[in-house]
């Protein structure tokens, strides 16, 4: 995982470092790709919007080096592209995950930004975990149906009796990382 800040990565891109661009895209790929789905758009449209946001980001890098938060910029551009897409297609979404007014506005609301910030911080926190803890946390939160503790223990090569301790240690570690990343409870 690239530990450089967004600003350092942007500057490195401008200095010709292609790896910095890769790190930037990897850091925010899920955030950007998730936004069209939250607007109820289909996968093909989400792929187009994802590419379009990053194309704009690439072309604007020289100006983005001076902004405070790249994340907020990416959210704003992605939301506007979803809004314009909806205007062009004049279609109503089949499902909208966020029940709020964002689907009729071209600027993201404070609530949406807070919601997406929380999600992104959790992603970043998980990226900072050890591979073992990452595996535990992803199983705990992202698997459907929820796997039994015996299954998780089996995957990790642990006895079912000790999985509780491992689970708590990984949860505490993630909680601490989130605190360090500025997650506001």
């Amino acid at each position, binding site marked *: 995982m690239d530990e450089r800040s967004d600003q350092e990565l942007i500057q490195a891109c401008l200095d010709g470092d292609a790896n910095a*661009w890769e790190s930037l895209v990897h850091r925010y790929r899920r955030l950007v790709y998730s936004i069209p789905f939250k607007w109820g758009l289909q996968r093909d449209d989400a792929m187009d919007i994802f590419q379009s946001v990053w194309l704009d980001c690439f072309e604007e890098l020289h100006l983005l080096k001076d902004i405070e938060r790249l994340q907020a910029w990416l959210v704003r551009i992605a939301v506007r592209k979803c809004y314009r897409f909806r205007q062009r297609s004049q279609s109503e979404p089949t499902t909208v995950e966020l029940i709020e007014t964002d689907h009729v506005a071209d600027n993201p609301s404070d609530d949406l930004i807070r919601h997406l910030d929380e999600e992104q911080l*959790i992603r970043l926190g998980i990226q900072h975990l050890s591979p073992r803890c990452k595996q535990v946390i992803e199983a705990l939160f992202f698997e459907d149906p929820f796997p039994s503790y015996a299954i998780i223990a089996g995957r990790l090569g642990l006895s079912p009796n000790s999985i509780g301790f491992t689970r708590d240690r990984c949860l505490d570690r993630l909680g601490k990382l989130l605190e360090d990343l500025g997650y506001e409870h």
Partner: protein
Amino acid sequence: MTSKTGNHIATGTLFESARLKAELDPSVKEHLEECDHCQGRRRWMEAATRLGPKERTYDPPDAVMDKVLRLSRNRGLDRLRKFIVASLSFDSFNALAPAGVRRAETTERHMTFEADDIEISLSFRPSDQRNFVLTGQVMSKGGEPLPDVSGRVALVIEGEHVATTALSPWGEFMFQDVPRGSYALQFALSDRLMRIRSLLITH
């Protein structure tokens, strides 16, 4: 299972209440209502739960990621290093109108911008009540077309490239149905980026 460790609710208990909706004992519930620390821990666990299984569907397909990652190669990071802001050198709305012609009668506006050895001519005229047609040409200051077949121009609103088009071999471009508003124009040439920072299209 121990539901409290020290003065706070045990991590596992909080997790199971947030993720698995497990009922809390009355004494634990009472503590949670009064303890900011435990409420905070439970809140991030609830947020992670909301993220849930969908999180795994938010990985863009490999082919799409490849296209985005290739931008740094295909479009060239080197080009980004040469970024030039074009400056206004002529605006027909600031020029004196010919004798007998009131300025309000002229509906077409012409502007010229300069950046290094390049000149950008712009012209916009209303196409209907709300929209404009914006045409332009990029050429050398000597009036020669640029030897650049890959040039593109983008109409930008607060960082978003809302429309893009390729430059013709003579450096010409056109945007139709541009609503009134404030824009930037960005020209991506093979060896540089040029920007007109602010273009207010109002009349």
